[in-house]
């Protein structure tokens, strides 16, 4: 690694951090405007069923306390400056600081998403490789058909199917909840957690397979028809050796990159899977916040998911910069 490379990387990271900052500011602003326009009354959302007992005066007091009677721009700035100092506000439905809710939920979702991310990556990659190596055979057709079908499958319906088969018919897994209900938090064992994790993780993995598999298949087919594979075959390489030596190294990077760049779909999938299995993660919190008008939590989640997606894309980009020799090492013959 040269000095030039380090310098390039530093400037790259500098621009990226400016980009995420500007993205976050714009997204906060737009989202804030959006939720403020919602017909859902935040006070009613906060008070809930007791709304009948809230007098006009009390209502005014709450409005004043939250600053709801100020102009929207003013509200945005006071919310924004609080966010900058690390205070995302208080979640109305959980009655806890938003950052705390997100932190705890993220921990749960992370377990779910990492499992699904790894599983779908590995299985999808292998399926793509097999399909491309056996191109136009029945195996390729089966894998392709399966993936296209998966791509059209609603995630939540896949969850429902797994629920019917494994939880209802076979009774292998509980029907919902991240931990057994009625058990104290400290009594929840690792085993319980894992048991509740499997079905949602499986749902997410199955759905996630299609994208990697189809992409890997396409990429490997491209690689296999490239000039350097023609030459490798001309040198007598074939079958598995050919794939191992020249195929794999040219498709692994794009596949890993794709998986990182798919954080957005992963998050969306988690929202649905968590809802089906009532798994207490970020996705479920997003749905709850939307349904029950928990504005601070919803805004916090929008920002958090943006950062999440951004980090995925950043890692994907960095992998290319650091691992691919074409960007890592310069044109060295010119210097010699």
């Amino acid at each position: 690694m040269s000095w030039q490379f380090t310098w390039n990387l530093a400037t790259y990271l500098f621009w990226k951090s400016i980009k995420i900052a500007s993205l976050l500011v714009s997204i906060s602003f737009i989202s804030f405007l959006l939720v403020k326009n919602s017909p859902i009354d935040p006070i009613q959302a906060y008070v809930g069923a007791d709304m009948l007992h809230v007098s006009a005066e009390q209502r005014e007091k709450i409005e004043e306390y939250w600053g709801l009677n100020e102009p929207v721009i003013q509200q945005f700035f006071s919310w924004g400056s609080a966010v900058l100092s690390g205070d995302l506000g208080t979640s109305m439905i959980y009655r806890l600081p938003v950052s705390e809710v997100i932190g705890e939920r993220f921990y749960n979702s992370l377990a779910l998403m990492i499992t699904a991310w790894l599983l779908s990556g590995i299985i999808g990659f292998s399926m793509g490789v097999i399909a491309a190596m056996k191109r136009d055979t029945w195996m390729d057709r089966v894998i392709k058909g399966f993936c296209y079908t998966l791509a059209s499958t609603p995630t939540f319906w896949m969850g429902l199917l797994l629920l019917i088969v494994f939880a209802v018919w076979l009774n292998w897994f509980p029907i919902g909840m991240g931990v057994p209900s009625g058990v104290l938090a400290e009594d929840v064992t690792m085993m319980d957690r894992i048991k509740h994790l499997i079905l949602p993780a499986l749902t997410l993995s199955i759905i996630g397979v299609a994208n990697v598999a189809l992409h890997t298949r396409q990429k490997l087919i491209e690689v296999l028809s490239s000039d350097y594979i023609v030459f490798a075959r001309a040198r007598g390489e074939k079958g598995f050796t050919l794939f191992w030596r020249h195929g794999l190294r040219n498709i692994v990077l794009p596949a890993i990159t794709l998986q990182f760049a798919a954080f957005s779909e992963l998050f969306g999938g988690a929202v649905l899977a968590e809802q089906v299995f009532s798994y207490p993660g970020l996705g479920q919190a997003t749905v709850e916040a939307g349904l029950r008008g928990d504005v601070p939590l919803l805004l916090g989640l929008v920002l958090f998911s943006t950062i999440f997606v951004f980090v995925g894309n950043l890692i994907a980009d960095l992998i290319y910069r650091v691992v691919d020799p074409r960007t890592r090492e310069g044109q060295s013959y010119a210097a010699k």
Partner: protein
Amino acid sequence: MSILKVDNLSVSFKQYTSGLRQTTQKVISNLSIELVSGEILAIVGASGSGKSLLAHAILGILPVNATTSGDISFDGEVLTPKRQEQLRGKEIALVPQSVNYLDPLMRVGAQVRTSVRKENPKEAQKKVFKRYHLNQEVEKMYPFQLSGGMARRVLVSTAMVSGARVIIADEPTPGLDSVVIEEALNNLREFADQGCAVMLISHDIESALKIADKVAVFYEGTVLEIAEADKFEGNGDRLQHPYSKALWRALPQNDFRTNID
């Protein structure tokens, strides 16, 4: 002594032309040539006329939508796809056109080592790099880091270490400066002088004539005429086919006379 013989070879591709119609396009038709040990046969014709496909057909590495007919025999034995697979890289080696034929993510030293068939790969690769004046560091380079001349030498190295008896060089000269062209051609001559049969595919008749023993004039998917290299002289009167004559006369030193008389 003839070592590789191509007899009445045809290659065609299936494709869709306008809208919904499927057609078969013949790229090579009824082509026959013969390669002899110790000799260079140049296949000369316009760019994009399907000459490279001839090389791919001999090696049995055509794309899947291609169909072939006719016979190719090596050492008197007709080649089946299976036999072709066994011979590729061992008895028949390809020297491709450009650096694009090297795996972009594999160090070139390693790529040369995978071509070694009979000796110790590491030693053979070191020896051949020394012979072609490639530095120690080149071994560790990736293809995109090579200069045009270095890339040429690396590509020739792969054929050299394979120990093949038939060498097919596909357009070894385009886009290179004259010194490198000279060197590339000399390398091919050396192969022939060692007793290999060399097939040189080129659109550049002038440089091909410098080293070739025989020249096959390729046009519209077939060979019009095979003539000894020394017949390409003067007005080209010793050539038989009008196209060969035209090709010869169109060269700069022959006053670009393109009219056929």
